[in-house]
């Protein structure tokens, strides 16, 4: 079976495009599609992490059902109220097709501009159809769709959709409290993230981070020292440091204003970067699809 798969992979790769695409490359390309949509929608880091998590979870589950590869951990029992109870294999299904398809489909269902993934999804199916029988394609799609449906519903119950109905954060006027800053004076970002259902933790309270450094305007205090450090660093930033900062910047939408003209520079936020880094690593190491999916999901 494995040889058949590898054979299929080779065929797929050669049939696909000008360059030879490894499984890692294929999967990374699919991830990139998701990332592109998130850039388009100006998704911030927390929300992006959530989308990536559920999308990759779907691909992970397909792989788990079909191949039970080494290193994969069944999630039933680990995740509360998890809709996937049993693991069965369907031999008719083409696993690579179903895996990548599930990833794209999840993104399409969940992302605000998910409709943008319709074209890449169709393209992907088209290419697969050149080397697989229509029945296999049909079956694989249906298989992935069923799984995706379950997981979309599961995701919808994590409380994220409720956060838009909560009391919006009103900045405090006390010294030391967070204030919006120019030019956009943006709202507090996802202040109710703590209410969203985590995956493995019971709640966000399970691991309490250290308290923030207490606000102080006194010269010798820790807060002052840290602020001064930021102040001094930004005054003498090298070009490379600038690039690093921009790369890791949380803000998915940097507003540049010039008089009445305002334009936004959009880029992916840190969660997207980590996916990107993972993709790069997988491609460089030429990992199998199973491994690639595993690393992206975890």
């Amino acid at each position, binding site marked *: 079976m494995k040889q058949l798969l590898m054979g299929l992979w080779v065929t797929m790769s050669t049939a696909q495009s000008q360059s030879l695409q490894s499984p890692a490359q294929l999967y990374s390309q699919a991830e990139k599609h998701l990332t592109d949509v998130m850039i388009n929608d100006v998704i911030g880091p927390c929300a992006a992490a959530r989308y990536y998590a559920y999308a990759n979870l779907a691909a992970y589950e397909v792989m788990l059902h079909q191949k039970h590869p080494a290193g994969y951990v069944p999630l039933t029992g680990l995740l509360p109220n998890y809709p996937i109870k049993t693991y069965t294999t369907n031999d008719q299904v083409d696993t690579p097709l179903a895996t990548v398809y599930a990833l794209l489909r999840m993104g399409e269902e969940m992302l605000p*501009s998910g409709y943008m993934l319709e074209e890449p999804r169709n393209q992907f199916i088209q290419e697969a159809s050149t080397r697989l029988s229509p029945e296999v394609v049909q079956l694989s799609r249906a298989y992935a769709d069923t799984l995706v449906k379950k997981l979309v519903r599961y995701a919808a119950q994590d409380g994220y959709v*409720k956060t838009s*109905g909560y009391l*919006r954060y009103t900045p405090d006027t006390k010294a030391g409290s967070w204030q919006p800053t*120019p030019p956009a*004076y943006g709202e507090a970002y996802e202040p109710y993230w703590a209410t969203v259902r985590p995956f493995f933790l019971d709640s966000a309270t399970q691991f309490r981070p250290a308290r923030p450094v207490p606000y102080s305007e006194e010269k010798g205090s820790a807060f002052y020292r840290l602020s001064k450090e930021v102040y001094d660093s930004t005054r003498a930033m090298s070009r490379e440091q600038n690039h690093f900062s921009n790369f890791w910047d949380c803000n998915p939408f940097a507003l540049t*204003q010039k*008089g*009445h003209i305002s334009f936004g*520079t959009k880029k992916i936020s840190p969660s997207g970067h980590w996916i990107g880094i993972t993709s790069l690593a997988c491609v460089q190491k030429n990992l199998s699809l199973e491994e690639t999916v595993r690393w992206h999901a975890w």
Partner: protein
Amino acid sequence: MKEWLTLGLSLLGLLPCASVSGQFTLLNPTQTGVTFTNKLTETEEQNVLAYEYFYNGGGVAVGDLNNDGLPDLYFTGNMTPDRLYLNQGQLKFNDISSVAGIGKGNGWKTGVTLVDINRDGWLDIYVCYSGSGDASNRRNRLYINQHVQKDGSVKFREEAGLYGLDANTHTTQALFFDYDKDGDLDCFLLNHNIKDFKRFDAALVKAMRDEFAGDRLYRNDTGADGKPHFTDVSVEAGIKGNPIGFGLGVAVADLNQDGWPDLYVSNDYIEQDYLYINDGKGHFTDQLDQAVGHLSYFSMGNAIADINNDGWPDILTLDMLPEDNRRQKLLYGPENYEVYQNMLRNGFYHQLMRNMLQLNTGAGMKGPATTPVFSEIGQLAGVSNTDWSWCPLVADFDNDGWKDLYITNGYLRDYTNMDFMKFYADQQLKAARGNPMAMMDILKQMPSTQTRNYIFRNDGQLHFENKGMEWGFDQTHLSNGAIYADLDNDGDLDIVTNNINTPASIYRNDHSKTNYLQVQLGKTSLMLATGAKVWVYTQGKLQYQEFNPTRGFQSGMYTPLHFGLGKSTQVDSLRIVWPNDQTQILRGIRANQKIIVEPQGNKQTGPLIPVEQPFFVAEQQDTIPYRHTEDVYNDFKRQTLIPTMLSYQGPHVAQADVNGDGLTDLYVPGAKGQGGQLLLQTLQGSWRATTQPAFEADKMAEDTDALFFDADGDGDQDLYVASGGFAYLTNDLLLQDRLYLNDGKGNFTRSAEALPADRFSDACVVALDVDKDGDLDLFVGGRVRPGRYPEATSSRILRNDGKGNFTDATETWAPFLKDCGLVCDAAVLDIDHDGWLDLVLVGEWMPVTFLKNKQGKEFTASVQEHTKGWWNRVEVADLDQDGDQDLVLGNFGTNSQMKPSEQEPVSIIYSDFDQNEALDPFLLYYIQGKPYPMVSRDEALNQVFALRRKFTTYQAYAESDFSQLFTPEQMKGADTLQATQFKSGILEHTPTGFVWRDLPVEAQFAPIYAITLVDADGDGLKDLILAGNQSHTRLKIGKMDANYGMLFRNKGQCHFEYVPQSKSGFVIKGDVRDIIQLRKGSETVLLFGRNDDTIQIYHPIKK
């Protein structure tokens, strides 16, 4: 045959060659000879990124430059040569630009004005320069008129340097006026910056003076050589010149009619406008925040003129708000309350993006340098939305005696388009990878929005009708500077505009002949008439104008003053006050001519407008030791889509003699976190605060209404306090109303068991003996369910057992009160004269509702047709003295973007559309005949995430109406409320029922929250006082503050007449929520209770 042909051809020649429709005809440039085009050529070096104001356009000036009696034209071209045209008569012009000696030097030209600087009787031309680039290229030019040459042309010689007026600032316009009244013309230079500031320390920057961006005032002193010399006196004169001043419009007028010219400066961007009041001693003080309640944000051109013929100059500022829904939705991002609060904190005051019409109330004028007070009524007047606007021309275009309004608009590249901002720019930038040319390509992608200019006809009722199509203005141009003048001397005003990339427009006024009078102040420009004031009286009607040539936007008009006279064939009297205070009066002037007046008469000082004794005068100090203090709460953080905040109700003050000493005492309520107080009146007429632990214990409740009544029948006045507000849980314990029993000496204790459990946020309480059993029962109105607006809540009727114990009798007496709506106020009256007391209820989204008392057994409800509104207050009185009770009703008013009617209601559709356990209310109102949601795309998508799929672009949202927002299933599960009437008014009680009676338009200036009736003029009829305002609304609705306390005289038969503020004496600022009449000694004073503020007291003046 030949003769026929010739005749036919010559007849054709007489036909106008451009579009003919309505009152104005756009003339053909080849016919007039005026082919000037302000052509903009965008290049790598010269574009909107290199220079901020690249698209602002040019200016135009009109005046008689060759003293032949015909007004000539001067156009400035930003990057093309200026042009000078001499009027040949019959609307033909001769281009003498090449021989006139103008157009010296390169540079970016902006505004132009005319002035006789050397007082030789010949008009000189001042041209302003701006632009980026070398400072030497933007020295302003002053072309001195060298008089008519032998060939008939006029020559000019550039001498700005000689006069000291060759400033190299970024100048928008120059304004010449005599600010120190020493007989010569001084110069105000309106400048702007070319760098924008987005992150700065406001206090620091505002205190700076920028050499090239700051406005300047030059004082003219005649030197020993007899020539004028200009000195920069900006600092000592108090003229601000900070780097964030982007001055785009300047106007001069005597705003407070104290004999000294004042200035209004419109600033683009964040810096607020300046309203400089001249103190007569060489100094100006910016009084903007005392004079107006809010102003235009991106203020561009402006105009000062008396638009309602009351003799007081009004101010119009132009901004960028489009008329249609599509362009509005493409323009608006999300409302950002924090940005707005930040703006206030940093001293930028309240700025909103729309045209503002500041109507001068004439109030509070107490002598020289007093601050005038304005009511902003742009929306009520219908002139608030004219898209990206530049130049207002306020003049009587149809000669009916009322000044009309023409507005130029247009912007070459619409980069305010939100789609462009968010989605495209970044893609292009990334692809281009920093190639500068790519930015140009990006810019060229932005749509060029050519919109029609606007013309409005003043109907004399504080309202302007859009006459664009009817009067022949259906062309789309990008127009900037503009002037009006009688170019063909036929008695009506023609219009000329300077356009970008198309020839200048000359509109000939074809108005059918009506009567007019033109007043030329002086034979030639030598007369120095700048600042002269003219009052024209015809058949008891007044018109007022001041001669100030620089007006509008980058333009100037040195022409006779034009007065339309309507049907009158003569002017009864005409008064002129010259700049040196010489006053002359002319009488019996025949209409339809131009009179030339030379100064005569004696100098008169003293008030220009007779000062009448007002009806009321304000108490000098706040003698009531109390300040209603609100908690800080932002309702929009809880429900982001609601129209107005509901946590800023109150105070409603209650009065009674609580300690039996014959003096009326007060209960002044507390907002959340503030305890209510009992104030005892002393014999000296002052107030003594008492300690009431019971009130203090309940301070976390928000007092929305209070009522003194004898609850327990023991002869003293007990107190019922309604608890309400929005800063609570939906079923909060703190919403419990309270009853406090009086021990007879003014000490109150809470009667814990007296009231049934109540978790309703209430707004009002009234007492009435429902069952005629000798004790007072209560009606309590439920206002809102906190966090669940606009879900209906319940009102209640509480039955008194005679001893001050109340039970909820709603089920028995009025079961329909359960979930009846959002009740704001109630009043008691006997509607059917059957001896059983009835009730009238008013509320939000509710019709006026009557509860008829059926013999004390139950109430039946009925509504007044066509009265669904946003009612706040109701008052009962016999207004027409016919023996029955009429109703005065306070509503939202018509000074907003929403003008509901039966056919075009304002509605709100609400449901939990996205199933996240929060209500999603969507307010809709009609724009140009179709209903649209009020909220912007970002606001809607932030509330209901699922909408993000449907409206991925701003364009998609802008082009949809509400029907596309939700599925039919979602709509089926949703509820709808409607309002068809926002006018405050009167319901006259007649034998056949209640009949609606309109109040004067002034009653609609702002939402009315307080009503009282008092005989102000001593004629035996009750006059009406209305107050209100609302400053806690959505930013899009904006601060509503146009009501300073209004008096309306009762003329009988339910007709009321507005009394001007100067006559009523009222200048009450803030959100008034209550007016009570209090007996103090021998007089009755008026107490105006204001939200989050002190109580203002007014005394009647004894005649």
